[in-house]
């Protein structure tokens, strides 16, 4: 019970971070994935490769570079200055930015694949029925790419929950502000508090399992039978 109380703020923060990040990832990935799937420009595969690059750096190293970028001397500091802040590092917003960058490829790629798989005839049919490209995108492309969106959401969500290196680096383990469950778990493991560690790890896994299962079942129920 005491253990639960102790980890609750971290768990709540994790949920908030994972939800906000997943949402931000979907919002960001959708136009990017669409562009990657449909554009004819030659360099788009270059952009696709760049999106995957944050994956290549170890999280702490990536975190370090992000720390520099978000810090008072980087662009993040400039942005934070707009509302009187000093830097985006060590803030919740900074965590979201870091998590988004780190998980972006897992979300962009499945959505892009799903967009790519859509038969052009579907969009042509929509146009012939008077739907503008924007209208057709929402009424035809997005519903047909449903599975890609759900996969992206699941991977992005799970990855953000487990994410740790980047967050630790740019978040600074501030209780209630940037100390998420994964960091708390790390601390428990580091300090040999096995009981709490197992409890938290088990809780995270069970909770995430339920969320992911729900999403996957949603997909199954609503899946387009072609």
């Amino acid at each position, binding site marked *: 019970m005491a253990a639960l109380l102790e980890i609750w703020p971290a768990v709540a923060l994790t949920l908030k971070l994972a939800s906000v990040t997943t949402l931000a990832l979907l919002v960001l990935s959708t136009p990017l994935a669409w562009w990657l799937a449909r554009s004819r420009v030659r360099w788009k595969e270059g952009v696709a490769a760049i999106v995957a690059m944050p994956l290549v750096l170890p999280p*702490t190293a990536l975190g*370090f570079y992000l*720390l*520099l970028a978000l*810090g*008072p*001397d980087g662009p993040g500091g400039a942005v934070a200055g707009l509302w009187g802040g*000093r*830097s985006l*590092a*060590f803030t919740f917003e900074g965590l979201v930015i870091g998590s988004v960058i780190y998980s972006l490829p897992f979300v962009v790629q499945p959505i892009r694949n799903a967009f790519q798989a859509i038969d052009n005839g579907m969009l042509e049919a929509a146009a012939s029925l008077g739907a503008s490209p924007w209208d057709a995108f929402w009424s035809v492309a997005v519903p047909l790419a449903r599975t890609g969106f759900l996969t992206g959401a699941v991977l992005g969500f799970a990855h953000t929950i487990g994410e740790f290196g980047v967050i*630790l*680096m740019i978040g*600074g*383990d*501030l*209780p209630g502000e940037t*100390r998420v469950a994964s960091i708390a778990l790390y*601390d428990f*493991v*580091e*300090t*040999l508090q096995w009981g709490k560690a197992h409890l938290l790890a088990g809780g995270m896994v069970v909770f995430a399992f339920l969320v992911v299962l729900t999403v996957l079942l949603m997909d199954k129920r609503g899946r387009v039978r072609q």
Partner: protein
Amino acid sequence: ANADTARIAVASNFTSAAKALADEYAALSGHAITPSYGATGALYLQISQGAPYAAFLAADQARPALLLQDDRAVPGSGFTYAIGELALFSRDAAAALGPDYLKQAPFERIAIADPATAPYGLAAMQTLQSLGLDAVLAPRIVRGKNIGQTFQFIWSGAAEAGFVARSQIADAGAGAHWTVPSSLHEPIAQDAVLLDASSVAARGFLAYLRSPAGRATISRHGYATPE
């Protein structure tokens, strides 16, 4: 005095001691201390990028010195708050640990912390050098990035023995250990600095570390304290 709060950055190896110290200090002064834990290197980087910590309890002397040098810390605030004690540890309670154990080497893997990044790792290497075993044992050494990880290597059974901080053994309980005489390695001094001159709570907390009560708590957690 008005109740004040301060965030302090604490090297992970000092986690449980820091918790106890913060609780004691809060009861004593009414000031709240919220520790954040991390690798000394990472904490240093964060502080140099403006992390909102009022004080820094490092695991070495180098990073506090760097911060002082960069004017990131309050001049003259640095001091050694604890001296780590190195121990050879094995999960096997029956193991007869000591220099002979290292010489006979009845193990496949021995764990140490990374000498490049962790002071305890450096001390462990120095110990092996003093015993003239560094070259012999080199192929059997597995390295953790910090002593937390090193301890887990041993705790999980993946390595049969290894050098850890005595403070960790105090936390863990079971197993056998041998406290390495301080003559075999250079002292593992852990320094603290004040980062925010205006923080009453942090200043007070650093003072508490040097008080007899604070020193008692520190040594209870497996550290020596400076004279």
